[in-house]
């Protein structure tokens, strides 16, 4: 079926080009061969078959296995072995494409831009980890995501950073998500894929800078565990939101916690909520007053954020290649640069006039005004929500994983001395 389709396609193309070639004058007319000679067929291999839906099946299988390791067997070793599989299969063997992290952009592109579609397989890659997250927590991050698994494997000597620094740096992933959305919505490109730190390692080749960045993140990851996941991963934001409302979630002790404090230092991600210290327990009225103040201030902060984002539209718009080209061409015309670069050279050889290019760039800059304002408002909203979240002090007596930030990696399991209720020891 595929073969006949291809043959028809090739034949059609040959006929089409033959009529085209007949209409135009060639410098050297194709020869009239005396000896029997047939024109060779055009060799046009179809796209490599890929895995199709098998990719989705394997992803589903890996997610189910991770869930089983987290909930049923409570096996850190199992999760570790699954991490190795994920790095080998989704990373090195499938060369990192498609991945759920990048699929976010395809789904966004299909949402924002008319005429852009997205294949069902890519949607399944986007949705499956989120659904698992909604029911079981971030089991995808634990050992299925090749980027996370890779960093989990190298986190040999993790140090703990202060929760305050963790929160501030953690805002990076919201900014990255916002910028990626802006990039997709304005047509600047897929930033998450462009700055994927590990894809060069999967493919054993990339630009030198990206390989350097990937190496640096891995090296940093030996001491500051999972720096990409915690501070940059845009998909992690969505997973975190889902996980916050998850139906089930990893529990450190399988039975009631005895608050023995043995797991206290086991989590390198600051994702264990400790029992509330005495000095933090405050009069409920003070807390309520603070929350009221934040909620009252939020609209002003969000408006300020939107204004700030709007003011940033000029530097932000340089993410777009057309704006870059327009600025370059303008600078060359003003003799700021003496030499042309390949882009401007090609542009000048083409049909588009300079005025048209600048008009196009101006229109794109306009879309960045709107997008920048949204980005600023989004960041301000996140900061407001974080502040409100911080000011709610819940009285807690036991050690529990923080559902939003816990990667369900199981590092705390070996530290917990509590046995399964009813288990014979």
């Amino acid at each position, binding site marked *: 079926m595929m073969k006949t*389709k291809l043959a028809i*396609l090739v034949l059609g*193309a040959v006929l*089409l*080009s*033959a009529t*085209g*070639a007949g*209409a*135009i*004058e060639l*410098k*050297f007319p*194709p*020869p009239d*061969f*005396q*000896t029997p*000679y047939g*024109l*060779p067929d*055009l*060799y*046009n291999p*179809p*796209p*490599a078959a*890929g895995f199709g839906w098998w990719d989705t099946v394997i992803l589903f299988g890996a997610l189910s296995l991770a869930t089983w390791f987290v909930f049923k067997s409570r096996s850190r070793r199992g999760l570790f072995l699954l991490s190795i599989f994920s790095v080998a299969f989704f990373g090195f063997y499938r060369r990192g*494409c*498609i991945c759920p992290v*990048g*699929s976010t952009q395809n*789904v966004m592109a*299909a*949402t924002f831009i008319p005429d852009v*579609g*997205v*294949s*069902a*397989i890519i*949607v399944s890659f986007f*949705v499956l980890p*989120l*659904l698992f997250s*909604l029911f079981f927590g971030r089991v995808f991050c634990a050992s299925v995501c090749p980027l996370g698994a890779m960093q989990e494997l190298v986190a040999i000597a993790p140090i703990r950073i202060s929760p305050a620094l963790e929160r501030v740096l953690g805002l990076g992933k919201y900014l990255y998500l916002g910028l990626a959305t802006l990039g997709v919505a304005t047509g600047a*490109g897929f930033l998450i894929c*462009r700055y994927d730190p590990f*894809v*060069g390692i999967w*493919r054993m*080749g*990339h630009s030198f800078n990206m390989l350097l960045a990937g190496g640096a993140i891995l090296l940093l990851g030996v001491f500051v565990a999972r720096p990409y996941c915690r501070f940059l991963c845009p998909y992690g934001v969505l997973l975190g939101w889902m996980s916050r*409302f998850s*139906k089930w979630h990893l529990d450190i002790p399988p039975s009631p916690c005895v608050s023995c404090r043995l797991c206290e230092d086991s989590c390198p991600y600051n994702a264990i909520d400790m029992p509330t210290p005495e000095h933090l327990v405050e009069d409920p009225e003070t807390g309520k007053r603070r929350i009221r103040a934040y909620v009252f201030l939020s609209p002003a902060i969000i408006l300020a954020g939107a204004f700030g984002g709007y003011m940033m539209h000029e530097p932000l718009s340089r993410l777009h*290649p057309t704006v870059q080209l327009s600025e370059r061409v303008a600078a060359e015309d003003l003799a700021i640069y003496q030499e042309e670069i*390949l882009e401007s*050279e*090609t*542009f000048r*050889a083409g049909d588009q006039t300079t005025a048209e290019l600048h008009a196009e760039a101006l229109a794109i800059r306009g879309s960045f005004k709107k997008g920048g304002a949204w980005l600023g408002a989004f960041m301000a909203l996140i900061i407001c929500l974080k502040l409100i979240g911080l000011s709610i002090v819940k009285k807690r007596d036991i050690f529990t994983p923080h559902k939003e930030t816990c990667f369900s990696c199981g590092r705390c399991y070996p530290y917990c001395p509590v046995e399964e209720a009813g288990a014979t020891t």
Partner: protein
Amino acid sequence: MSKTKKFDRRDFFRGTAALAFTGAAWGAVGEKTEGTVWQLDPNKCTQCGRCTTHCVLNPSSVKCMNQFNICGYCDLCFGYLQPGSRARGTGAGDQLCPTAATKRAYIEHPYYEYLIDEDLCIGCAKCVNACLVFGNASFYLQNRQDVCINCNECSIAKACPSDAWSEVPASQPYIYLTGDKSTTI
């Protein structure tokens, strides 16, 4: 955590969220569920050479093709021979191709057939440019779909100065020469 089996309000919200979410994402699939692949339009290509240097694969998945019904089968092929080469031979010193990927075979006097050894071709477009300037413009670049790993954002597409790259339906993964180019030159 309560162990009640009752389906409570939170479960209802969660279920609704899951359904709405999957539905919305599935809606995004829309009518265009077919996969796409990256391809360059040879009619827009300006032979800048970036296909060689910017592909994540080494050598690049972009290869040269010869469209035989346009090819003049010239003995003195500028896509094949180094400018000013003394002999029209097959020696490496006479060839334009830096990797000796263009092969020629004698058909009859004075015609030669030109084929590309795609294992050697690096997609540098030197021959494409020479054939465009001096000949019938029958050489052109195409992204080999059996080699390409179909990155989500193609590195070459991002670097292409002439906007020749786009995503095309996987069922029609090649773009052929329309012949317009040889008339404009």
